[in-house]
C-alpha cells in the first residue's frame, strides 16, 4: 500500500511543480526554492512527518524534504543544546545530502568533460 502512496504523493508534488512552471514566469530555480520553503512550513505545521510516515519515499525524495530536515534539525537541536542548538543542529540531518552532492559533483566535474 505504501508503494501506491509513494507514487501518488511523489506524482502530485511534481504535478504541482509542473503546473506552476507552465502557467507562471517562474524558472525551475524558483520552483525548487518555493518547494523547500513549503517543506519547512509544512514541517512547522507538523504535517510533513505524517506525510513521510504515510507515503515513505514519495515525500522523502522530494526537495521539500530538504526544508523539513532543516526545520527538524534546528528544532531538535534546540531541545538538546538550547539556543546554540538552533544553529549547530540546523544542518545535521541534511548534511549527508549536501556532502554527497558536493563530493560526487566535484569528482564527476574533474573526470568528465561538458557536452554541448
Amino acid at each position, binding site marked *: 500500500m*505504501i*508503494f501506491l502512496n*509513494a*507514487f501518488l504523493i*511523489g*506524482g*502530485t*508534488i*511534481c*504535478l504541482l*511543480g*509542473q503546473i506552476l*512552471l*507552465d502557467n507562471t514566469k517562474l524558472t*525551475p*530555480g524558483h*520552483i*525548487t*526554492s518555493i518547494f*523547500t*520553503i513549503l517543506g*519547512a512550513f509544512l*514541517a*512547522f505545521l507538523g504535517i510533513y512527518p505524517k506525510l513521510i510516515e504515510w507515503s*515513505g*519515499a*514519495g515525500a*522523502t*525524495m*522530494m*526537495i*521539500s524534504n*530538504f*526544508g523539513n530536515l*532543516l*526545520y527538524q*534539525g*534546528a*528544532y531538535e537541536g*534546540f531541545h538538546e543544546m538550547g539556543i546554540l542548538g*538552533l*544553529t549547530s543542529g*540546523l*544542518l545535521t540531518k541534511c548534511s*549527508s*545530502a549536501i556532502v*554527497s*552532492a*558536493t563530493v*560526487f*559533483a*566535484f569528482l*564527476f*566535474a*574533474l*573526470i*568528465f*568533460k*561538458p*557536452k554541448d
Partner: protein
Amino acid sequence: MDKDKYQKLVKENTPKENKTNKAFKAFIGGGLLAFTGQIIISILEQSFGMTINDCYIWLCIITIFISSFLTALGFFDNYVTKWGCGLLIPTTGFAHSITSSALDAKKDGLVTGLGATFFKLAGSVLLYGIISGFFFAILGVIIYG
C-alpha cells in the same frame, strides 16, 4: 501580405506546447521515481536490517550519485526535457543543478570557475532552505515549546 494575416499565420504554425500532456508526464515521472525509491527502501530495510531513517539517507545518496553520474555523461538534460518537473523537484534536480554548473565552469579554472559557481543554481535552495528552516524553528520553539 499584410501584418494581421502574417501574425495569424505565425500563430497557426507555432507548435502548441501541450500543458496537460506535460503535467501528466511530470506526474508519472515523479510518481515512478518515488515508487522506485520505495522499492529500494524496502530492499534496504529487509535485506540489510537498517532503520528506516538510515534507509532514507542511503536512498538520498544513491539518487544523488545516479543523477550526478547521468548529468556528467550528458544524458540527464534529455530526461529533463521529457519528464519536466518529474525530475526537477526530487533530489535528482538538486544534484543535477550542482553537477551541470560544476561541469560548465570547469574551463574557467578550479577556483574562479569551479569553486565560484559550484552552488550557482543550488545556492537558492540552500539559502532559502536555511533561512526558512531557521526562522520556522524559532517560531516552532516559541509556539510548541
